[in-house]
């Protein structure tokens, strides 16, 4: 039994090392917030916590309202990989665990850049992400620090 456990742990260790080798590309999206939100920059990890509802309030006390994109969209996959360091299916699994343990439910999902911008523009605590091509004159682009 000890030999089997040793083999399993060794194999797990090798996989762990492999798992940390991530390719990083420059994102093709902007993270946006309501124009009245005083926050101007956040770290990647802080943004991840907002979208996963691990951080629920902005510094000014407003409730955080994350807006995601449809599961199969390319922008969602890119956002999941660059902000959460996980695939969209891993994030979906995270939310299923949150939902069925009664802890939390995910934010809304929007189909287009325009729908995200409209929501963020009209909700003070909202945060979303849109492609860099989208017109963003009525919302604020959040700077992502390393």
């Amino acid at each position: 039994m000890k030999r089997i456990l040793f083999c399993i742990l060794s194999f797990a260790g090798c996989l762990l090392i492999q798992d940390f080798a991530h390719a990083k590309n420059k994102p093709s999206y902007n993270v946006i917030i309501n124009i009245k939100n005083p926050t101007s920059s956040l770290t990647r990890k802080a943004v991840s916590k907002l979208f996963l509802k691990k951080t629920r309030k902005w510094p000014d006390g407003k409730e955080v309202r994350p807006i995601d994109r449809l599961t199969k969209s390319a922008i969602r996959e890119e956002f999941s990989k660059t902000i959460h360091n996980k695939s969209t299916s891993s994030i979906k699994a995270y939310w299923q665990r949150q939902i069925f343990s009664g802890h939390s439910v995910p934010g809304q999902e929007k189909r287009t850049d325009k729908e995200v911008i409209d929501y963020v523009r009209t909700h003070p605590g909202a945060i979303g992400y849109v492609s860099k091509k989208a017109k963003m004159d009525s919302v604020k682009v959040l700077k992502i620090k390393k």
Partner: protein
Amino acid sequence: MKRTSTPILITVLSMTLLSGYAKGQSKIHVHGHLTQAYAFTDGRQVLGIPDKGTTDYRTLALQFGYALNDNSKLVIQFSHRRMGLSPVATLEDEVKLDWAFAEYRFTETISGKIGKVQLPVGIYNEVRDVGTILPFYRIPFYTYGEGIWSSETVDGIVLSAYILQDSPWNLDISVFYGGWDLVEANDPTTPVMARVEDGAGGQLWLNTPVDGLRVGLAGHRATLSGGNRVAGKRDHLTTWTASLDASFERFTFQAEYIDLRFDIGSWKPSYAHLGYNITEKLRANAQIDLGRIKFEINEPFFSASADANNKDYAIGFNYRLSSNLVLKAEHHWMKGYLIDDNPPNVFTDDPVKVQYTIISASASF
């Protein structure tokens, strides 16, 4: 909190949820999950699975939630479970109330729940039947039980806090108090209901700077009445659970150890699980689930002792058609005493070997 309060709580929560629907409010959420399986063994019947096979093997749940405001919500979940020919199934209703609770968030990091609330113990206790996120059809049987010696919920209160949230090392802490029902199956062919009272304990999770790696420690004390005990007799339970949960993008390694002590003996189960994503959709899983039971009975007219091991080795493959739809095939090699038909006597007999296979499909929304 007494069991009689549950129907009142259900009524209040249901009326509130229905009034929310009537007003067309968007603060309501509805979610559900379903797992349907086909299972068979190579001979003896275990976990309700006969050698001829059964499709009467499924779990289903439907959850309704209503956010009263940013800081409080009501959640109710109903479930249905079939376990083939398991004697435990005779003690379960077709549809049962899984949980029903009200939650209030005191601060961003401190919250409380009251009602029939999920029991925060170990990696899987709060998500026992959610097939789309479990590596196998059921969570490790000896460690968590299913239907026997376990409860998903506590009738009482749970307080939770998230500490040092801005630190790379942070803590999730939950403490609970209350009671719960459980099924005792000292003889697996004739399970009986027992009641846990004054259950008090907690779960501590230490989240590490490595994203996905956490270690946990849980413990609780309680008294047990009813079941196989003579009227008025109470047993004392003390349980400790140690957990390691490493869940990464390509692989998962989980291990847990439980030390449960009661008046006349102890139950020390443990398991280790390794999962690896071969492709984005295909995942391989392997698991060792062990359960050691020790009894020492010293009554005036009867004394006996036993030290017996139960084992379940499993391998399986999951194919994820989408994030909400998963197919699973798994095979188990079991050796032990928890057999449904003519179970071996833990004091005098050798353990029985059984192999069983489960093929299942899980969906959630």
